[in-house]
């Protein structure tokens, strides 16, 4: 691709997303789902978005993916060019989303192979042989076997559907992957499997990742930057280590402090969790 690698891959400036409520125009009010969010992301970095349900995580991802019809103010710059100025084909092969609910996001009437082929034949000019090769490589990468390609959607298990959803995002070889909280709902073992895949993608292709994560441990391990959302407002944005060791906002401090709660089982080999938390309580008093 012709893009030069610029340090500024994705810039979001003062993004506010709103819905208009009310029937008549003079009664209309703006309801903000997200207000005044700015962040920047370099290529190959991971951004973790942390927040409760209803804090606007998914809305932010959908706006970045252009799959949400809500209107927004502010600018989203991709390679220093406004995302609205991109041709759809170009944009789609830069940013892809792994849809959280494969049952409704994927077409149940066509075979898995066709599901994976569709974005390729629509957005790229690859020959059928190349398409076939790329599909089989991608399917193997995410852990789908050859025979699954001939199945319909309902013949797969839930986890295989999620793998398929990831494969569909990856066939176009995007430079950024958006992951909604679907991976969080998986069990601990499979989650690690997916995280490993993300790490591998990042190492091999310098892929940027934007993930919804709530587990501080995983955030610390995977992410470079973190954005904490609360009811549509950005509480904190910054690098991970400063966020954990010296949080600026009150909410972040409370989240970090309550991470190591009395019901959690932490490895005995990792006493370091308690230490930074102790430091924080001292500073905050």
């Amino acid at each position: 691709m012709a893009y030069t690698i610029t340090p500024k891959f994705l810039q979001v400036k003062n993004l506010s997303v709103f819905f208009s409520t009310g029937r008549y125009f003079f009664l209309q009010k703006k309801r903000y789902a997200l207000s005044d969010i700015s962040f920047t992301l370099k290529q190959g970095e991971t951004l973790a978005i942390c927040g409760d349900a209803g804090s606007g995580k998914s809305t932010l991802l959908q706006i970045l993916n252009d799959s949400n019809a809500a209107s927004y103010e502010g600018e989203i710059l991709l390679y220093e060019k406004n995302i609205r100025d991109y041709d759809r084909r170009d944009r789609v092969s830069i940013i892809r989303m792994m849809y959280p609910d494969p049952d409704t996001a994927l077409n149940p009437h066509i075979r898995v192979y066709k599901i994976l082929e569709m974005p390729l034949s629509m957005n790229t000019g690859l020959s059928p042989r190349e398409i076939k090769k790329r599909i089989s490589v991608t399917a193997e990468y995410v852990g789908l076997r050859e025979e699954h390609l001939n199945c319909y959607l309902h013949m797969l298990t839930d986890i295989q559907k999620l793998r398929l959803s990831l494969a569909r995002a990856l066939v176009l070889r995007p430079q950024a992957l958006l992951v909604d909280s679907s991976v969080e709902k998986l069990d601990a073992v499979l989650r690690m499997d997916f995280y490993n895949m993300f790490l591998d993608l990042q190492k091999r292709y310098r892929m940027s990742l934007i993930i919804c994560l709530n587990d501080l441990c995983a955030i610390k391990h995977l992410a470079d930057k973190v954005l904490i959302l609360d009811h549509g407002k950005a509480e904190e944005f910054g690098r991970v280590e400063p966020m954990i060791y010296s949080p600026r906002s009150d909410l972040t401090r409370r989240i970090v402090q309550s991470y190591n709660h009395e019901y959690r089982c932490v490895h005995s080999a990792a006493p370091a969790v308690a230490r930074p938390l102790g430091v924080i309580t001292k500073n905050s008093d």
Partner: protein
Amino acid sequence: MALIEIKNLSISLKTPNGLVPICKNLDFSVNEGEIVGLIGTSGAGKTLICKAIAGIHSRDLEISFDRYRFDNIDITGKDLPQRRKFLSERVAIMLQNGTRSLDPLMTIREQMTENLPNSARPRKLWKRFFWKKREIDILLHKVGFKDTKAILNAYPGELSDVQCQKVNIAMALGRKPRLLIADDPVSTMTALSQLQILRLIDSLNQNNHVSVIYVSNDLGQIARLMDRINMIYYGEIVEQGPTEQILKNPHHPFTKIMLDAIPDMGAGSRRKSFFKAPGGDHPDFQHPPVGCPLGSRCPCADRECNIKPPQTRVKNGFYCCHFPLNT
């Protein structure tokens, strides 16, 4: 004393190609005032077991058991509608998505008023005026709401997930249940909200003597909440024991895998290094594996594992494995 005792629970799914068994010969019991954990991978049948216990399973499941005693009352012979009625007075349920388990078209006040049982009505005549209103206020205060009026007039869609879960707990409290089934209510919350909900469940157990069945797929998140843990894999309980024993010296390799998957936040862990994870998926129920279901993912597997392992009893529990760890 056992609150619930189920013998030989079998669950199977009706498909066009015949019955597909999901659980076979499962023995399950909950003692009074105990928090029991059901922990397993996604798709292992945890939710189905819970629904079968509460009698709210869907039509395409077939459920049978040899014996079902609840609170020393034998309800084996009752048919499904009778059993549901019996259980609905004694069991409360929390689902993963708090907003979805409330009616979106009714305000919280209406739902809570409807939910209060008539048996909670005070005896004294002068206390009966507006008793529902007062009761609801008390319940909401108990779960930690300060401004009850704003909550009561809201629709579930206007509240956040945490608030909805709290309302769910308040509604459960109002019916004075004997058993609470919590189906993974905290997995997608931030640590702060998790702690609030877990503390509420714990206090419900301590102060109101409600037994709890807690379903989760992450051992690290909530392990210390529970008194006893059942590890579930492929619709079977593969290991059972008190929490301390499961955490300190697990016998079954699957428990070890789950324990290893707890991420390590210590200074020793290198950032962006790969996690330890066994590859492969949970086996499909339609194509059952030969022998031990963990088979291909198990680090200790050997030739003998082609034969299904029997249950071995140990102190306070059991495990099913040919080559147990830490014995």
